[in-house]
């Protein structure tokens, strides 16, 4: 369905192609003539920005049309492992858009911000309870940002104790890629510890790697293999015995809400992915939020300002002088509050029992689907899994030559978003499949049937898979040329008349 695009081969023209001088029909109040007369010429733009001029109806059409080219949770099953693509409650979208929340300036004095400050304070408490930690900072903008914040907190702690020699962070190879990347950003060398064949961390290897240079161990738990690190108690003991701290990547908390509280278990720091566990929408890549929770001894180092409750029932932002040891801020203002509102609403709606039910159902669904998928694919690790599981098409590839990539693309023709593929990097031809708790058993069955049917097709007609998808807005892309000759913007449009 189309307007201009009916005539060309492109799915939809780009905005510059839609542009006609004078077309913009949206009206803003005209600036008075001479508004910029006082400005020194050296500061002014000579040539106006050559932006597209598109009428409002076409702008709306353009983006509606683009939206139809997207797969999304609202339009289909999205078992993208490691991403927790569950249903995003619509009431949370409503809440975040309430003018009282949306229009509040971040530098508004506390007295004007009591509603949001209370919400933030209560969210700090909720996350503390969920994580089993005494202190929470809401500032980080995403999981990876929380990791950086957490590792900087750990660094500050070591420094505060005069323990400056620690320059390594140990990361299992089954951890998320952001973990080692974070270590680097925080100025640490990454030491990788391999997993054992059963997918669990090799505790002996860990013990061997630990030492006076170890600042921290970062553990993704459940790991990116979808497995709970069953040696967690020993691990924590070993880490602490080495004078290092234990960081838990809590992005996969959807698996263990109410079952495992990392702080209570002995971790020193963790981050949450609110956009995963507490179901704020992923937005095509973001935004999210990645609050961190820490043990008592690390609280002084948290980024500020935190939100503080006063005895009179009011709330305020901490003043910088209150926690001089703070690592400082990791972003402007106080956090991605619009995301915090959604997560708070989600936690409020579920309560403790509801959150535990979420994990029960997520884990049950993953194990059920795993069982079904195992009928046609390899399962490199013993169950039970947690919220997601790894399957592999290694045997199928050996037999048919068809790769996991081909299977993924063929799933698109069946109407599904493919799972995460070739991640984690340590399993060949792998698929990381995360059904989440919000998909019905019928959907799980239909998806398993599709995966099994695709395996059959791989044997019968491998070319069908290699050419897939056949039924998507576009066919496979030439990614090599895209990288060889990057075209990252349209050709500069000719300037204004």
């Amino acid at each position: 369905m189309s307007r201009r695009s009916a005539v060309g081969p492109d799915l939809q023209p780009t905005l510059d192609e839609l542009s006609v001088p004078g077309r913009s029909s949206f009206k803003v109040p005209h600036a008075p003539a001479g508004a910029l007369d006082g400005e020194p010429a050296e500061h002014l733009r000579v040539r106006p920005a050559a932006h597209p001029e598109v009428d409002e109806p076409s702008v709306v059409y353009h983006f509606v049309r683009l939206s139809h080219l997207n797969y999304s949770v609202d339009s289909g099953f999205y078992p993208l492992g490691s991403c927790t693509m569950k249903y995003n409650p619509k009431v949370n979208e409503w809440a975040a858009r309430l003018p009282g929340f949306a229009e509040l300036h971040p530098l508004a004095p506390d007295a004007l911000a009591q509603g949001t400050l209370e919400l933030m304070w209560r969210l700090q408490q909720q996350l503390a309870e969920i994580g089993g930690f005494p202190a929470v900072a809401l500032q980080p903008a995403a999981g990876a940002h929380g990791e950086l914040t957490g590792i900087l907190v750990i660094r500050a702690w070591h420094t505060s104790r005069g323990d400056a020699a620690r320059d390594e962070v140990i990361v299992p190879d089954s951890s998320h890629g952001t973990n080692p990347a974070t270590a680097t950003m925080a100025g640490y060398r990454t030491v990788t510890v391999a997993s054992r064949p059963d997918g669990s961390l090799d505790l002996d290897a860990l013990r061997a790697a630990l030492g006076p240079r170890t600042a921290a161990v970062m553990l993704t738990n459940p790991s990116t293999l979808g497995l709970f690190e069953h040696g967690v108690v020993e691990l924590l003991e070993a880490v602490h015995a080495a004078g290092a701290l234990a960081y838990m990547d809590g992005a996969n908390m959807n698996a263990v809400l109410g079952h495992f509280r990392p702080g209570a278990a002995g971790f020193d720091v963790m981050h949450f992915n609110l956009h995963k566990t507490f179901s704020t929408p992923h937005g095509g890549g973001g935004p999210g939020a990645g609050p961190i929770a820490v043990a008592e001894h690390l609280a002084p180092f948290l980024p500020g300002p935190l939100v503080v409750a006063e005895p009179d029932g009011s709330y305020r932002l901490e003043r910088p002088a209150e926690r001089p040891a703070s690592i400082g801020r990791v972003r402007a203002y106080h956090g991605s509050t619009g995301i915090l509102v959604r997560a708070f609403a989600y936690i409020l709606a579920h309560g403790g029992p509801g959150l535990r039910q979420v994990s029960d159902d997520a884990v049950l669904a993953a194990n059920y689907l795993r069982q079904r998928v195992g009928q046609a694919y390899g399962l490199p690790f013993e169950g039970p899994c947690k919220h997601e599981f790894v399957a592999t098409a290694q045997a199928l590839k050996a037999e048919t030559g068809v790769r996991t990539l081909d299977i993924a693309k063929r799933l698109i023709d069946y109407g599904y978003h493919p799972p995460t593929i070739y991640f984690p990097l340590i399993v060949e031809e792998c698929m990381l499949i995360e059904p989440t708790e919000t998909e019905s058993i019928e959907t799980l069955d239909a998806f398993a049937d599709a995966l099994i049917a695709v395996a059959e097709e791989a044997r019968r007609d491998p070319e069908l898979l290699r050419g897939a998808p056949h039924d998507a807005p576009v066919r496979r892309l030439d990614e090599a040329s895209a990288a060889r000759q990057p075209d990252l913007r349209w050709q500069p449009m000719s300037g204004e008349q």
Partner: protein
Amino acid sequence: MVYGPHTPSDRERMLAVLGIDAVERLFDDIPAAVRAPGLDLPGPRSELEVGRELAGLAARNRIDLVSFLGAGVYRHHIPATVDTIISRGEFATAYTPYQPEVSQGTLQAVYEFQSLLAELMGLPVVSASHYDGASATAEAALMALRATGRDRVLISRAVHRHAVDTTHTYFAPGSRELQELPTAADGTTDLVALEAALADTARPVAGVILGQPNAFGLLEPMARAAELAHAAGALFIAVVEPVSLAVLAPPGEYGADIAVGEGQPLGIAPQYGGPYLGLLAASQALLRQVPGRLVGRTTDLEGRRAFVMTLRAREQDIRRDKAASNICTNQALCALAATTYLATLGPHGLGDVAAGGAAAARRLELALAAIGIERLHTAPYLNEFAIRVPGATGVHARLLERGILAGLPLQRWYPDDADLADALLLCATEVTTDEDIERLVEALREVTA
């Protein structure tokens, strides 16, 4: 509310297939010693109750004041098209476009975002978004370290306070050094001090960071600062406000190698701090140093134009500890808001917004001058400036009682600077009315009388 579909009998069916009697069995891999019995949080609650609670909290915020507060976050009229588009589930509930065949909507929109911002910035490479302006500034500073192999960066103290603070935090580890440059009497960065700092060749400078407009709303001598930086082999990094770029010179033209900024003014609500939109643009030479996602144009098997994430070998999921940054989740939906905003307004609309704010600020300056309140600085400004009012913090508080949010007392950000103790930073945009200005002036007259 538990949103999922599973009924008790669904659960039983699944358990039966798994051959276990209770879901608890699936958690037996959690050692007993650390197994939790549940969470102490009240609920579940119905949507009615949740809605009521949230509406009650929102109502306790006060957003009805006449406001002159900017300081990095600017109130603009947001066209209704923006929320119409970003609230579409197809955009909001998708994730990173790993599978381009079913993500052309997001991918093309990001390509358009990159193109629009490249034009605004005058720089060819635009990342698909960072967390916010402050963290983008820090990332740009790290980029300068990587690109030059040096370990010292100069940042003007008149860059947005939070961007400076954030960069300090990012610079804590290792041997990185972040040095603040002072401002001159007119409120702009002291170029003499810059020259001096650059001259210290013992620790060569990787990058120089200035804001345009700066944190006091003033226009900096960017071209001159860029020249000085380049002469010392350093990169020049501009921290810009995107709406202003409709009328101000683009960073690429005055020699910036990297431009960063807070994209909030491009159609994103203030929301008490986020989610916002970190902008980061760079020259072609720095392409492979750019952190974050990039979307490129290509073709599909049938030769049809299509878009795809590219140059992924900079990213954490592939490169792990060798990645250009640890960023994974970004601010894609906010970038879509900005794209829709810019597409809706068009270049003339954006120009009117920028110039309209400048004109309102001029009117504000004149109205204040008429009651004897003068600007603090002499350098030119665009739509934000500081005024000198004895006892600024107290005056600010008294104006609040009169329903006026009189900008930011600069003491909050510069507690140790006596020059700024009496300063209020005021901003005007196209939403500022003459009546707003009158009310401020009237109230100031009373309060300072």
